[in-house]
């Protein structure tokens, strides 16, 4: 019994350490955060918005996927500091709006 309690306690500590204590900082969002670490959002942002040059060659499914990924990134960028939020929200908006524009132009052809 004592061993089980000890094991459970150690397991709980391990979970806290490996989760980086994020559940303590923001218990509401801890289990619902997308799987993006501190700078992963930048890699995702680059991956999504580097395709604007190819937008006219992409199909509707790909454009929809890119738009969805932009929408997923937005709340992450909104949590950054004031300057970064201002810069990256604008850039994200431009690339998302372009994908929407291209998608609509293909649909209306």
């Amino acid at each position: 019994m004592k061993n089980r309690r000890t094991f459970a306690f150690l397991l709980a500590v391990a979970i806290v350490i490996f989760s980086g204590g994020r559940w303590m900082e923001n218990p509401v969002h801890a289990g619902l955060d997308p799987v993006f670490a501190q700078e992963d959002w930048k890699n995702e942002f680059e991956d999504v918005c580097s395709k604007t040059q190819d937008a006219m060659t992409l199909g509707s499914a790909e454009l929809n996927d890119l738009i969805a990924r932009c929408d997923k990134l937005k709340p992450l960028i909104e949590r950054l500091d004031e300057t970064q939020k201002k810069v990256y929200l604008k850039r994200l908006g431009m690339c998302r709006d372009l994908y929407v524009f291209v998608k609509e132009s293909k649909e209306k052809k």
Partner: protein
Amino acid sequence: MKRALFLLSLAFILAAVAHAETGVKKKRALPHEYGRVILNNSSEKAGLAPVVFDHWLHRAKYTCRLCHVDVGFAMKAGTTGIKASDNFNGYYCGACHNGKTIADGNTVFKACAKTPGNEEKNRCQRCHSLGRNVKPQYDFQAYTGKFPKERFGNGIDWEKAERDKLIQPSNYLEGVSFKRQPLTAQKDFALNPKLEGMPDIIFSHKKHTVWNGCELCHPEIFVGVKKGATRYTMIDLFDGKYCGACHITVAFPMLDCQRCHSKQVQ
């Protein structure tokens, strides 16, 4: 009586001429002034002169897309909301003006300081220079002396200058830009003007995307998806909409009609 009437008429004419000189008629910008932007959201509040930004030097070195997409400057003056802290932290002007970036073999000076001392104040005046007698580092005439000339705007044919490799605007900034595939250019197309007898406008996507990419124009400036769905009028253009977003401010001005209305009338 006749003399009084004559003097009154003369006074009226002189007053009219004086008013015409200082009235609402806009003075055409000098070549080095064309594309100048004055930024004063918070400069005067902070005790500094408004910022004078001359497009001609920056457009010779960088594409429009780099600054207006990657760095994030808005297309309309005063709407970006730049603060000194943004520049100091390496954003906006500070993306290049960081004391580290090299351009033309020179280190680009750092924009803004946290607590400007006397030495920094001299540096502040390099940009916060409206109304101050500040000698710019680059002289317009000396820099553009060998560039091909045109009639209006800066008086420089920037497109030909690039074709002749006199300028090579960079489209990439380390740490800011993404590595992109080369753009697949869209075809040129003709736009029919309303005025009969006026030559058609030949719009070149290729020429525009070299400097702008796609997202600079679409959809912020050109919203219409279907060709012919949006009706462009010269009044709208001269009001700064559509083509006028660039072609009354930085790119060759619309006074040069033949640059766009270039298809020969049959």
